[in-house]
């Protein structure tokens, strides 16, 4: 059987890409291999580890749980774009400052998930951070520093708001 393919149009980090891909190719692999966004990390390839988390039409999604053909017409944002945005930049800086990573494999997914949490819940408890990030595995840190970094980012944002107000 020849490999069934379709052409899809993806807007990635505000730039449109038209690619012809095998139907069975995960969005994560298209982003990495066809389009060069290697900040999308592929860990478990079956939706457990969260390393491949991206934003599709504004909502965090595991890009290994979406086939490229399903994402035709979608707007996708990866860590390459998000880490430069104000809503995420402080998180990235705090992750670095707090040593909230060791090997860094989980970090793109962790940052994108944490940014979504803080958008929904600007003042989370540690338990809420742990519950929200329960879909993102880290095999190095033991999570303590990651939760610290998210809490500190939240506190920093509240302080910044307070100063302005």
């Amino acid at each position, binding site marked *: *059987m020849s*490999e*069934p393919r*379709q052409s899809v149009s993806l807007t990635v980090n505000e730039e449109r890409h038209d690619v012809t891909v*095998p*139907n*069975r190719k*995960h969005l994560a692999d298209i982003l990495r291999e066809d389009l060069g966004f290697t900040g999308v990390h592929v860990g478990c*390839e*079956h*939706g*457990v580890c*969260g390393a491949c*988390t991206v934003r*599709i039409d504004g*909502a*965090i*999604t*595991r890009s*290994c*749980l*979406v*086939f490229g*053909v*399903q994402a*035709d017409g979608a707007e996708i944002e990866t860590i390459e774009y998000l880490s430069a945005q104000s809503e995420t930049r402080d998180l990235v800086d705090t992750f670095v400052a707090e040593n909230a990573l060791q090997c860094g494999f989980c970090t793109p997914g962790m940052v994108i*998930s944490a940014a*979504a*949490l803080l958008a929904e819940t600007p003042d989370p408890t540690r338990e809420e951070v*742990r*519950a*929200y990030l*329960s*879909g*993102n595995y880290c095999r190095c840190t033991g999570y303590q520093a990651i939760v610290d970094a998210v809490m500190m980012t939240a506190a920093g944002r509240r302080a910044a708001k307070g100063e302005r107000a």
Partner: protein
Amino acid sequence: MKPYPFEYTRVSSLEEAVTLLQREDEPRIIAGGQSLVPILAMRLAAPSRLIDIGGLSALRGIERRGDVLRIGALARHAEVMASAEVAEAVPLLARAISHVAHPAVRNRGTFGGSVCLADPAAELPAVCTALGATFEVFGSDGLRTIPAREFFLDIYETALAPDEILVAAQLPVACPKERFGFEEIARRHGDFAIVGLAVRARMEGTLFAELDLCFFGASPRPVLAQNAARAVIGQELTDETQQAAVSALTADLDPQEDAQADAEMRLHLAGVLLKRRLAEIAGKERQQ
């Protein structure tokens, strides 16, 4: 882990989907894909064609219709979780939904997808069974309904015919005298439960007038523990009735062994959940 090759069609109507279901050798419906994509990645299934119903807007939406809340098959878990209608009309579902998967999965996973996968450890089939929900399904003979309590047959097996598609679920709106309970035990928040329990009860004073106890992860399908319920119905919750209900679970459940727990541990945990939830429901009633 990459799937076998497959053909792919994004359909624009239910009729088109049904025609493809009838014509293909081994078709699979895909909606959110949050369970199906891993199944394909692990090559546990090798469909000839994926029929993507994700674009069918008629299958979206959450809407109150008199005594039922109608949830479209394509309603995403995140929508259910954020819905004020769900919180008000079906409090049991509102309690259960935060246990369904992780945020990134809830953004894409659908109500209908969870129901149709029929994972015995999933929350939504148990909630539908506990509440006595009704499913609307569409096939070559048009629309029909299937009671949730007749829908889940076995592990990953449902009463859907091969050419039928789930369209919506109708969940009964809660009455003032009803009480609900929900709890599950999982190793990681958002994972499938080792054992879980969804409860609907109607109280008359301190007496349990009606009681539906639906266990999940404790049998090859969501199961109403009728013997346990009978041990409590018409009575107050006492140490004796509670113990009688727990003992009756042996006859109600058929726990299986897997990597997470053996059958004995599942039965024990089911008893723990039953005691806690009955106490909560009885306690709430006493406070009023």
